[in-house]
């Protein structure tokens, strides 16, 4: 498989039921500047790491000068099968940046949220990416740590060797870190942090940590999985390309529908033309994207 071949689409087992459905908010809590909102989905399949849902709050949608109008694409950060009362618990990590994420963060237990999903493709396991790969390096920044939380848990359940590098600005912006804690409540040992103010982990950027790993011996046979702001993803993409290391990047782009209907989520292909990120992604191999830019994110 080449670095520019699209990832396979998920099979029928993690295919979205047709249409949107109303789910009840089970809980909602603060998490280092972000919010974790948990829903109970009684209909859908268990999602794969990297997949996302289109969410719209039942109450308050449209209440800020006629926005949010469209649903919002949100990655699933954690799942729990067999939630109380049946169904699957879906955890979302939300950064309240505008009317949509604000309305979702405002949902309290018992309030309802429309969801469509799971949508999009998912991260592949290192073995599928590069047979005999040494292991996985997960690189996350900001609210982009969300899909990596679920990916980390799956890797650890399946015994896939992995390291996790997370970057934050400072302690006040370290949302979602608790999603990387084991059952003991402590941060999983494979997680390393970089903060710009040095308050946790090493001082600097998460890409500094990545560079030191890529400079190591076994680097080339590893696979990097990353999600975060465009500038970080671009740095990860360029570093991996320089070091000849395979990488998978979970991108963002403006999405109206999430199921291939609107053509709004276009991401330029290196050779010209566009991908629809909602159906061709959101996870793209490094070779599938040119420079990751804020222009489409």
């Amino acid at each position: 498989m080449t670095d520019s071949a699209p990832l396979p689409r998920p099979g029928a087992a993690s295919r979205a039921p047709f249409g949107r459905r109303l789910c009840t908010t089970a809980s909602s809590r603060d998490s280092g500047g972000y919010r974790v909102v948990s829903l109970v989905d009684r209909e859908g399949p268990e999602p794969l790491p990297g997949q996302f849902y289109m969410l719209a709050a039942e109450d308050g949608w449209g209440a800020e000068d006629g926005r949010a109008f469209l649903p919002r694409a949100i990655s699933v950060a954690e799942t729990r099968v067999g939630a109380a009362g049946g169904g699957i618990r879906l955890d979302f990590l939300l950064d309240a940046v505008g009317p949509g994420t604000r309305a979702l963060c405002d949902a309290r237990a018992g309030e309802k949220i429309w969801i469509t999903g799971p949508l999009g493709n998912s991260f592949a396991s290192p073995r599928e990416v590069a047979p005999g790969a040494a292991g996985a390096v997960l690189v996350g920044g900001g609210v982009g740590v969300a899909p990596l939380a679920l990916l980390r848990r799956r890797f650890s359940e399946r015994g896939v060797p992995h390291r996790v590098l997370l970057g934050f600005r400072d302690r006040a912006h370290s949302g979602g870190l608790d999603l990387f804690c084991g059952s003991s409540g402590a941060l999983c040992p494979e997680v390393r942090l970089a903060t710009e103010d040095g308050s946790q982990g090493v001082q600097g950027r998460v890409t500094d940590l990545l560079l030191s790993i890529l400079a190591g011996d076994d680097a080339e046979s590893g696979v990097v999985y990353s999600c975060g702001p465009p500038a970080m993803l671009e740095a990860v993409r360029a570093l991996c390309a320089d070091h000849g290391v395979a990488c998978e990047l979970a991108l963002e782009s403006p999405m109206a529908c999430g199921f291939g209907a609107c053509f709004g989520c276009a991401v330029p292909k290196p050779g010209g033309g566009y991908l629809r990120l909602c159906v061709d992604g959101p996870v793209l191999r490094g070779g599938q994207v040119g420079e990751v830019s804020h222009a489409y994110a």
Partner: protein
Amino acid sequence: MPELCGIELSTPVINASGTYDAIAARSVFGDELLDDFPFSAFVSKTITPEPRAGNAPRRIWETPSGMLNSIGLPNKGLEGFLAEDLPRLAELPVPLIVSIMATTREDFANCVERVARRPEVAAIELNVSCPNVHSGLIVGENPSETEALLEALRPQTEKPLIVKLTPNTAAPAAVAAGAERGGADAVSLINTLKGTAVDPASGVPALGNGYGGLSGPAVRPVALEQVRSVRARVGLSIVGMGGISSGADAAEFLALGATVVAVGTESFRDPRAGSRVAAELECTLLSERSSAPALHLD
């Protein structure tokens, strides 16, 4: 049984061109899509003679009760569509309407002829929100340009020709009359209103293309007025659309003279909006029939 230009439809609700990719939706939702297909006919995204990649991002921007798009008609071109997409669209359980746009009459005529020849195709929608490369005029803004185009296309096929009117004109009814004179079977309206927005983060237009088209509930009053004015002028069938998000909205279009309605942007919010609108519409119409509007004393 609702009907559009002789095509029998199971409900009066079809989709708006370019707002539902049934092939992508089937890959996302599986064959459940076909078991309860949301529309009573399927209108394809507009195809052009040559393939198009579409516009540079950013392509969509949310607005109060609506959205702007500058998608730029990405499509595989006539040949790609006929070879790859049409056979898969033919698997849908509903009649197929193919939307076409070209910038010369010759290209338009060729597309109509090639598409109409295919038995899978029930009707053709002509997207005339395009400049005539010879006159430079936007065909759909101009009654005589529209009439002349229809005169050139009418001989190509006996299948119904539906003209998708542009709303960005002083008198859509005059353009509809031109389409009628040229031999169209129906008009569909409205296409998106020209609009733009500034990205507060950069201070420049938010869409890569500088401007785009406005759709969604925000435009519904404009769409309703254009349907009303077109109905007052022509006898053609009318496909009414623009901001329909419920059966009550659809009923407004039908009350003003639309023959059937189309759901566009609402499908982005609810992939089954078409079925929901049709079901709500049935209830609305039933309850209207059973009870005259009542005035309660308290």
